[in-house]
């Protein structure tokens, strides 16, 4: 016919074939999260485990006791850090009280060579991983931006610009895979952070490259004052996985054993070439956004109370009690260890850090430019003049 003749299209059969299947294959159903967050603590019938997990064993006694100790230390760390803001030795502290299960599980699920990409709220995860708490708090204390050695600790700097650390995590995981190194990367982000473009781009790159990276969204229901309902209309944040072709898993973020199990499985899968996973942990920030925030402006006390009843430490203690493990001796030992961490931190934060203003110029480039050398000289002169007494 006129049109087709001109366009050079071929006349074809009356039963047209569907368009060639150039779309990437994939089983959508297996990528969707479960209906109910995965939990292992508590004695009522537990939710079906996510497909990814298979039949994971319930945590044994030793693991539960260890988790309990870590959680207690974690809570104490949060309390101590917040107290330090009141005494003025910390500029600001975004507490993870209420979210310790995620923080601890994240740290424990990592293997030696794995990397952690924390966000600004995740200093506890870095501490639980073994990074010196004083170094971790550099950023919030204000003596330097990142106080620990990221290469040595395999903990990336705490990321303040939200979600920007996620593409870094993917790039590092990709580089490790190219090098044939068997490691996985765990990247943390908040519910608010999932709205950023960088979240999207990172998950997409991870899936296309099959990078060994696990994304853990700590959905604590708020981005500062903004509740989840103003952040997303999705059935769950874990439902975002399928749009990238990676599995989404939903877990009770206050159930440390469950989070630990999900992350260990996902990281193990990633390490052995199984590709990225998106984990959404449902949790709650029991304190204000930071010590400077007033949470009563945007949320009701009874909501907070409801979540206190679901406290991650309470969940473990309940299980320990049921198993008859919560002995006086254990409690005393856990308390002492937590107290030791706190007092060490308190003591070492008391001494003022020694700062060298020359550092301002030392790390801008591998070699300072001529202009920076001049500026450094100017500052040195000023400081020398000031030291000699009197301004100017």
């Amino acid at each position, binding site marked *: 016919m006129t049109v087709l003749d001109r366009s050079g299209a071929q006349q074809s059969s009356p039963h047209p074939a569907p368009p060639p299947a150039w779309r990437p294959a994939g089983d959508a159903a297996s990528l969707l999260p479960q209906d109910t967050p995965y939990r292992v603590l508590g004695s009522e019938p537990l939710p079906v485990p996510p497909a990814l997990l298979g039949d994971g064993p319930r945590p044994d006694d030793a693991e539960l006791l260890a988790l309990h100790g870590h959680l207690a230390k974690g809570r104490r760390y949060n309390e101590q850090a917040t107290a330090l803001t009141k005494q003025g030795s910390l*500029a*600001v502290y975004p507490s993870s009280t209420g979210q310790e299960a995620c923080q601890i599980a994240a740290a424990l699920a990592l293997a030696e060579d794995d990397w952690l990409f924390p966000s600004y709220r995740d200093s506890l995860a870095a501490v639980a991983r073994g990074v010196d708490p004083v170094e971790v708090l*550099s*950023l*919030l*204390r*204000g*003596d*330097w*931006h990142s106080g620990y050695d990221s290469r040595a600790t395999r903990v990336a700097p705490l990321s*303040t*610009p*939200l979600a920007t650390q996620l593409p870094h995590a993917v790039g590092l995981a990709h580089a490790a895979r190219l090098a044939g190194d068997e490691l996985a990367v765990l990247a943390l982000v908040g519910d*608010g*952070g999932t*709205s*950023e*473009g*960088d979240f999207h781009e990172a998950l997409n790159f991870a899936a296309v490259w099959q990078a060994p990276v696990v994304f853990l969204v700590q959905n604590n229901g708020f*981005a*500062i*004052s*903004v509740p989840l309902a*103003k*952040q*997303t209309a999705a059935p769950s944040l874990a439902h975002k996985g399928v749009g990238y072709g990676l599995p989404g898993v939903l877990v009770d973020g206050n159930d440390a054993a469950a989070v630990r199990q999900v992350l260990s499985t996902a990281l193990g899968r990633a390490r052995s070439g199984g590709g990225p996973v998106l984990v959404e942990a449902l949790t709650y920030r029991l304190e204000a956004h930071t010590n400077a925030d007033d949470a009563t*402006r*945007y949320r009701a006390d009874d909501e907070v109370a409801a979540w206190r009843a679901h406290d991650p430490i309470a969940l473990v203690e309940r299980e320990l009690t049921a198993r008859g493990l919560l002995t006086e001796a254990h409690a005393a030992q856990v308390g002492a260890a937590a107290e030791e961490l706190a007092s060490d931190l308190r003591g070492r934060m008391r001494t003022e*850090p020694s*700062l060298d*203003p020359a*550092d*301002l*110029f030392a790390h*801008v480039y591998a070699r300072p*430019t001529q*202009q*920076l050398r001049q*500026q450094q000289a100017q*500052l040195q002169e*000023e*400081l020398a003049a000031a030291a000699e007494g009197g*301004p*100017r």
Partner: protein
Amino acid sequence: MTATLPQQTAPPTPLGRALNRALRDALAEDPAVHVLGEDVGTLGGVFRITDGLAAEFGDERCTDTPLAEAGILGAAIGMAMYGLRPVIEMQFDAFAYPSFEQLASHAAKMRNRTRGALPMPLTVRIPYGGGIGGVEHHSDSSEAYYTATPGLHVVTPSTVADAYGLLRAAIASDDPVVFLEPKRLYWSKEPWDAESPHPVPELGRAVVRRPGTSATLIGYGPSVPVCLQAAEAAREEGWDLEVVDLRSLVPLDEETVVASVRRTGRAVVVHEAQGFGGPGGELAARLSERCFHHLEAPVLRVTGFDIPYPPPMLEQHHLPGVDRVLDAVARLQWESEWTSKEAR
């Protein structure tokens, strides 16, 4: 005007409060005005600049958005295309960067691209600068990015009255305005009565904050108080310094600055942003050209160093303070340094 209280007897009012009042009055007067941003609703913003607006005008006039700066600015551009007058809040300077493409490629260019069919009457409020002990990414002076983008106005107040007046003018502008709020002045107070009518100045006019004859100090935003203090201190040394507050980097009020410098013959530009590629270079270049035969000394700059903004415990070394300004003034070739020419 009988109702106008003399400003002297007005209550001491923080700059942030005047901004809040400007938003409130703009929302009340023009139904096209909408405020959007992260935490601007229930919380009233992390600096409380939007305090009470959602309660008074409803969620649809003062809206908590999802956490996505490109989305916020992009949506605001769409709203402006439909005739609204959005005012968006970026939570901190460095958190405006994700929206950079929307700003540079769309907000700044939409009027131009469409030969005026789609003007962009939107205001992007950005708290900027340091001096509040903020951790990294919370203290950037990012004005150079905006002044290098034709199509944007770049405005920044240094007084309580200007905070009100310039923000009203920005919101009333039919062009996109990057409104830079010097965050360390949020709490600085002046006698100012929120309840009396206030003048809305024209955008793009500098103002002489302190007349003088020896040399001109040029500042904007957080540097204006520094300049004023320096001028005060300089009296002891026998210098009578003029202080010009630019108020608007784009459009730049060249005439006011040029007139001042031609009169005094000497100038120092002061800003917190890094020196290299900062607005001071543009000013110094223009003044050097236009005041060539009037200058007794080169135009000097006192700025932040060419480094990423330092951590809180070191920021006092970075910020241009009174002493550094006075040092620069001292270097303005007051005696016959002509002879030492070859030594430079």
